[in-house]
């Protein structure tokens, strides 16, 4: 079975895809920092950040529908955290509503904070999506390793990337086997079967973990992960980073 939902569009050939992943990570980091430290009232700056990221997405040839879908999945989580702020922040009251004895008021300061969180979160999410969808995960991991991220962290991510598909296949096969043999049956019966399947999945995954560890030891693993990486920074990589940095600075200075 084939899956590619983690880095589905990483095979496109575009200017952004060809950039060195380290440059992309650093530029992303810079972008996020700039966005975070922009004053909430700098509306023009936010608009310009938006334009910048839109241009980068255009360059990457990733379908806009996909980006929109991806980004909207995350927004509810941000909303869940931020939605109550306008009700609790003290200040000039923008409006109110009362349920019997309970009176809710929304303040301008609170709304400003909500806007601030939402716009910044959305811009950051978009930039993360750009990085992840335009880079092969294996290259992203290598770049993290090169940038001196702790190797334990990198290797755990790479195992996740390698085995998420294997585990999913295993579960799919069990599900198919179950569906091939069950017709009807009570809801309770299905719950029991499902619980059983999950148990079996955990057992198998545990055994697999053991075997993978043996396979690693057999090839000289002694607790230390060593990786060699072969990236070469090219002129265009530096140019990209410098251009992004300058655009960010320009937005920062003139947009507020």
């Amino acid at each position, binding site marked *: 079975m*084939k899956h590619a939902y983690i880095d589905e569009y990483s095979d496109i050939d575009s200017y952004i895809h060809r950039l060195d992943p380290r440059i992309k990570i650093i530029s992303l980091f810079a972008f996020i920092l700039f966005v975070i430290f922009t004053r909430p009232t700098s509306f023009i700056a936010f608009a310009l950040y938006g334009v910048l990221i839109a241009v980068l997405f255009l360059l990457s040839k990733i379908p806009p529908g996909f980006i929109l879908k991806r980004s909207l999945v995350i927004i509810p989580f941000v909303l869940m955290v931020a939605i109550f702020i306008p009700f609790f922040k003290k200040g000039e009251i923008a409006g109110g509503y009362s349920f019997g004895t309970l009176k809710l008021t929304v303040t301008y300061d609170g709304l400003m904070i909500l806007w601030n969180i939402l716009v910044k979160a959305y811009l950051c999410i978009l930039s993360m999506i750009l990085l992840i969808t335009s880079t092969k995960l294996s290259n992203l991991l290598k770049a993290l390793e090169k940038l001196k991220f702790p190797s334990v962290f990198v290797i755990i991510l*790479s195992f996740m990337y390698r*085995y998420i598909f294997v585990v999913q296949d295993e579960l799919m096969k069990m599900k198919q086997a179950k569906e091939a043999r069950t017709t009807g049956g009570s809801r309770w019966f299905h719950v029991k079967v499902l619980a059983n399947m999950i148990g079996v999945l955990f057992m198998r995954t545990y055994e*697999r973990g053991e075997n*993978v560890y043996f*396979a690693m030891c057999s090839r*000289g693993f*002694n607790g230390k992960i060593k990786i*060699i990486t072969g990236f070469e920074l090219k002129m265009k990589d530096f140019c990209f980073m410098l251009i992004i940095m300058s655009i960010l600075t320009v937005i920062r200075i003139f947009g507020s």
Partner: protein
Amino acid sequence: MTEKAIEIKNLDYSYPDGTEALCNINLDVFEGEFIGIIGPNGAGKSTLLLHLNGIFRGNGNSHIRIFDLDINDKNLAHIRSKVGLVFQDPDNQLFMPTVFDDVAFGPINMSLPKDGVEASVNDALEEVDMVSSIRRPSHHLSFGEKKRVSIATVLSMKPQILALDEPSSNLDPKHRRNLINFLQTLKLTTIIVTHDLDLVVQTCSRVALIDKGKIVAAGNTLDILRNKSLLETHDLEMPNSFF
């Protein structure tokens, strides 16, 4: 007489849960030899393989030597570079994100320099005819391709002994044929664990039959595989090529 590549004496092993998996195994394998380890499911074949590079150590006075090295903590790294173990399930053998990373894992652990690593990865992939897949993620390979890359992951360490656990299981006829052709060109001491007896006939000169953790017969391939009653008592069937 050629040198002994593997010497196993009085090997007993029980799993931590008490399952007695191996009982008094004695076996010598000579340099350059192809030996088949056959037996029904659960006989202890895989468990035996895991002893060849010190992943498991036998209980009590078990004793295993690889060439002139006893298996002990001091020799472990050295022994693991001499014995290439290929696991049955390629999804366990291939644990890195891409084919290159996987085949390079062994050489990197052996502290080869970067160009040395790249050269051995290339050589190993060439041997199994998978060079063109070097940048692909392992999870995009077909089953047969995974099996081939699995063998490359140990060939890249330039081992002197190759131990394969069920190399032909789940392969389609074409891939199985390729595997047999590949094995026939190998110059290494090779141990093949399998219940594919036709594969054994075509590749191994000697066979050890294991059942319930014991070696019940060992000797010339044809002598053992022609012994219908022996095979049937141990839940095996005579190879098709004999009919």
